């Protein structure tokens, strides 16, 4: 398949007072046009850093130290922030977690949308205004003409996130990257925003990378899922493959630790311990210290990628034929 965005073995380091954090340690992603890809992981798993690396939005203390990023076949790995400007906003855009801080409180909503249009298109003021109103309408904001001249603080959290989406969509980007877009919102508002994102994807064919820790959201909207842990992708596949046929112990643990509203009184599965410290990452598999089925080899050698199907792969020593022998076929 022709890929829209391809990330190959991306590595990102962050300098901190306590040492160098290897935030992303070899992540590979593929995003086809019109696809919705969810990247799932806990805080500190490197999921946000990966997309910030793609968009060159890393903090000053961070940098890409390896790997390749291809956008429509173009290598954009070494693009400067200035070069990225031609892509950010128009070809790829991003929605952040907190709608409160991603809007400028001193600028009207309409102005903020038309600023983006001014930057990336040749529209005149009148066209920009018309387009801004159209966008507000599109993201389901009532009375767009009136809202156009309002300030962010006059809107509720859900409305603000809609405005953020409108800004991101202003130039019909091919890729929309959403970093925990619903985490700061209430459940009923979250449902509205997810609905909106899905309908926009259907209408405009925008490919979406959704970063989230909420597996319910993933099941709701995603087509493909990559599960990150300790700066690496441990398992990746279609949404059905991940939810019904997960093989990696971490994915399984994650799925089992969500309370299921339809079942009662089942003890929640626990993944004991805490995620690894990426200043001094484990030599072998990042999950080995918490894994219920860890073997000696897991602590010492990083597992290779194993393909389960054309779309489903994982990195786990349990997939090695020798692991089967040892466990005597106790595979679940």
């Amino acid at each position: 398949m022709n890929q829209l965005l391809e990330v190959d073995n991306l590595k990102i380091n962050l300098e901190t007072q306590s040492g160098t954090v290897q935030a992303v340690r070899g992540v590979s992603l593929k995003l086809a046009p019109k696809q919705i890809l969810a990247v799932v992981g806990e805080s500190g798993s490197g999921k946000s850093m990966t997309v910030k690396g793609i968009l060159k939005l890393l903090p000053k203390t961070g940098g890409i130290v390896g790997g390749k990023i291809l956008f429509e076949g173009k290598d954009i790995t070494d693009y400067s922030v200035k070069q990225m400007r031609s892509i950010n906003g128009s070809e790829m855009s991003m929605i952040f977690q907190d709608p409160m801080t991603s809007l400028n409180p001193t600028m009207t909503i309409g102005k903020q949308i038309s600023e983006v249009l001014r930057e990336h298109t040749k529209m005149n003021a009148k066209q920009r205004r018309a387009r801004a109103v159209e966008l507000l309408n599109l993201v389901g904001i009532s009375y767009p003409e009136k809202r156009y001249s309002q300030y962010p603080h006059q809107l509720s959290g859900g409305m603000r996130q809609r405005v953020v989406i409108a800004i991101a969509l202003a130039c019909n980007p091919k890729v929309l990257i959403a970093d925990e877009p619903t985490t700061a919102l209430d459940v009923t508002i979250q449902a509205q925003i997810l609905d909106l994102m899905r309908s926009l994807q259907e209408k405009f064919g925008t490919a979406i990378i959704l970063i989230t820790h909420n597996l319910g959201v993933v099941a709701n909207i995603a087509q493909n899922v990559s599960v990150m842990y300790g700066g690496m992708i441990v398992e990746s596949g279609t949404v059905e493959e991940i939810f019904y046929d997960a093989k990696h112990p971490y994915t399984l643990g994650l799925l089992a630790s969500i309370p299921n509203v339809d079942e009662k009184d089942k003890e929640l599965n626990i993944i004991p311990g805490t995620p690894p410290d990426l200043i001094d990452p484990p030599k072998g598999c990042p999950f080995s210290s918490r894994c219920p089925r860890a073997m000696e080899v897991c602590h010492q050698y990083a597992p290779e990628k194993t393909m389960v199907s054309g779309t489903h792969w994982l990195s786990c020593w349990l997939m090695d034929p020798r692991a089967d022998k040892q466990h005597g076929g106790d595979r679940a």
Partner: protein
Amino acid sequence: MQSGPISDELFRPSVKNKEELEHISRPNLTAFQDGWLRLSKNKGSVCSLILLILLVILALAGPHLTQFTYYGTDYNATYQAPSMLHWFGTDKFGRDQWARVWYGTRISLLIAVVAAALDLIVGVSYGAVSALFGGKVDAVMQRFIEILVGIPNLIFVILLMMLMPASVWTLILAMSISGWVNMARLVRAEILKLKNQEFVLAARVLGTSDRDIIRKHMIPNTIGVIVINTMFTIPSAIFTEAFLSFIGIGLQEPKASLGVLINSGFQVINSHVYLLLIPAAVIVLIMVCFSILGDGMRDAFDPRMRN
């Protein structure tokens, strides 16, 4: 799948050590050690600290290193340029400038440190009381501060200087009349913020008395801002003293402070520029060092900078 040189032996379940799961690998550092470690990595701050210590030693010992006193006049040796005998030269009465500069530094530092200490005591208690009592007490105390800030500082100082004999203590008093306001505001803001922190709420639910909450939570968590603000108060007090002495309402001859020295040096700027340059250089050095050190300390001890 690639097999590699990995032996089959390794494919056996590993033994789990429960302790290890919750193990914290980073070294056990207190907040203070952590801050100190980071301060010591900041070259500017370390240089400033060393220079300041040197200046303090010179201010204490300097006048005794020469045979001359800061007040002893010698009319046969007026306006001598720096030499082996008079290291920083002499002034119009033939007084040794080396002794006078370090004596002046000592006085300036004394004034600054005592004024900063007064600011600290008054400001912290005022701010803490205002924030802790809240309500009407807070409103009245804040209005009082606003009135105080509304009156130009210089008017206070000049009035006081006219009423009282010009001495080091008058200067300190004059500077402290409204100098504590900044500290009070800062401490009040900090405590108001702390009051709503969940750990303070937790302490209240646990039945911790108000006195203990102040002692165990409020003070340790505001000490950082207090120390850092003091670091910025000292240079500004030195400057105020110099300014007052320079416009002639500060200390009187033969007493010396950096301001007095700069004032008399300024009068002969065309002929004997060293009389101005040396005390000016010292005052600049002190102020810059305190500022850089204060900045460094703010960065190093701010808990938000920790990860």
